[in-house]
């Protein structure tokens, strides 16, 4: 990743507006509410609709991922005047093989998750496709951080 892009991940100090949202484990009734709140906020800021849809898709996928696969976590949205940086941090169990998780169709989702219509193995690939930069840090047994950037122009 280019250095300029890397720096964008550490601009938190200058974030204009921040939003935090808890994502409880397997809470599918509320999963999606955090990204929906971010979407409504960005509509008020006048973010262009195509970009808004990319943000909506990426954040929705990531939020569902945390609800479906982790022991719960939180979503933090940092909004600047030129981009949004959304961080998803969970409490484990971590992604064993990130490269494998990035392959479309690969999924470790359990039966409950699949019954609810999720777990098609398109989550991370979808986030990558819709974001301008994606960063994942995780190890098996540890917590996972998934964060991405999407620019407004």
């Amino acid at each position, binding site marked *: 990743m280019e250095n300029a892009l890397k720096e964008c991940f550490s601009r938190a100090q200058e974030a*204009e*507006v921040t939003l935090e949202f808890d994502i409880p484990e397997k809470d599918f009734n509320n999963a*999606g509410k955090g*990204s*929906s709140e971010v*979407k409504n*906020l960005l*509509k*008020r*800021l*006048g*973010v262009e*609709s*195509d970009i*808004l*849809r990319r943000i*909506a*898709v990426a954040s*929705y996928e990531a939020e569902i991922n945390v609800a479906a696969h982790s022991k719960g976590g939180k979503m933090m949205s940092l*909004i600047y*005047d030129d981009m949004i940086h959304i961080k998803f941090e969970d409490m484990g169990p971590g992604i064993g093989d990130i490269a494998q998780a990035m392959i479309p169709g690969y999924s470790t989702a359990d039966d409950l998750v699949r019954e609810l219509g999720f777990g098609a193995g398109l989550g991370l690939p979808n986030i990558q496709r819709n974001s301008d930069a994606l960063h994942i840090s995780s190890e098996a047994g540890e917590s996972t951080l998934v964060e991405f950037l999407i620019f*407004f122009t």
Partner: protein
Amino acid sequence: MSDINYFHAIQILEDNCTGCTACVRVCPTEAIRVRDGKATIDTNRCVDCGNCVAVCKFHAIIPSSDPLDIIHKFKYKIAIISSSFFGQFTEDISYGVAKQAVLELGFDEVAEEAMVTEFMIGMIRDYIRANRDKRPTLSSNCPAVVRLIQVQYPALLPNLFHQEAPMSILTRFLRDKVAQREKLSESEIGIFLIVPCVAHVTAVHQPEGAYKHLQDGAFSTGMIYGKVREIVKKIQNDPKDIDTYPQGLTWALSGVQADLVDCEDIRALSVNGVENVMDILSKVEDHYLDQYDYIVLRSCTNGCVGGCLNVENPFVAMSRIKKMIKEGESKDINVDELEALYAKGDFAVVPLTPRPIMELDKDIKHAIKKMKRINEFLTMLPGLNCSACGSPTCYALAEDIVQGKATIDDCVILLKRQNKDDDED
């Protein structure tokens, strides 16, 4: 903000308004505020869903439709009846009698939406197959839904079914045909809709996407109902033989219409009620419903039978219409001419454009500044969303304050706390 002056078929009678805020709380686009004890509607935000009309107990928010006598300005008068109309009568009054009664209000000819339902289904299927890149296709027949998408979900505008609705298709078809048959000029023919909701009245007076002027007026079902019932009493024992199209009445019922479009290669979803519609549109925005090819969206409960200008409960009306569909037999209609007009592109509408209302400011830097100030005010407000200030929620009040449309003193809870503190001092 837009410079267009938006027409709405809703009127506020200030003398009747008590400032109760019931309308403020049910408005899906937060278009209503009570200021100085009276309700006011932001015409840029209103989508004509009719929720406020239905909820107002003081007859302060009333629908406006045209007076019936405007038909006499025309030599030849045609009424086009919305499908939901036939669910408004008790079961001793037949479909044919109800239709004949409309004719005897003073029209020369009566047509009905139901006549083109089958043609519409074919056209919708054809359109979906030709526009798979924009899936799901969203139905555009409900004018409130079209306006809701324009103001709140502009990213979804390309997904709207960009062809005229059935009553407008009939209008175009009949105007040409009758002009030829009766040897009249187009302007001598008056075409009027009998409609179940304020959104359809608005759409007649200020259509979105129409290439040319279509109808000459709209009458609400509720307004003509009394007169129709009187005529029914007179003609009920000696009814004329009149063509009816019960199988086409499905258009009034959102679920049944979706079932008809659904087929081997088209998956359809049906949703009604404005809250449900908004939830679904938000999910379509997130690409969460891409598995559907077609989504029928109607702002009112059960579809057009739930329109606020109807007289019957939407569930009863739906049940009656289902009975008519099951028991009746439709007159055959030749749709060749309609097919030809569709093939020529005559029913296409102008690409629909956004009517954005959500932005705090045109410049994102200013919008962010405003957002920060809104958040500051929000921490001061009690968070009860009581609407007593006249804004629907604490968030909306904070936004109104930042936009210079209200002050923090409008919050009665804060005022009460302040008075208490003053008393204790």
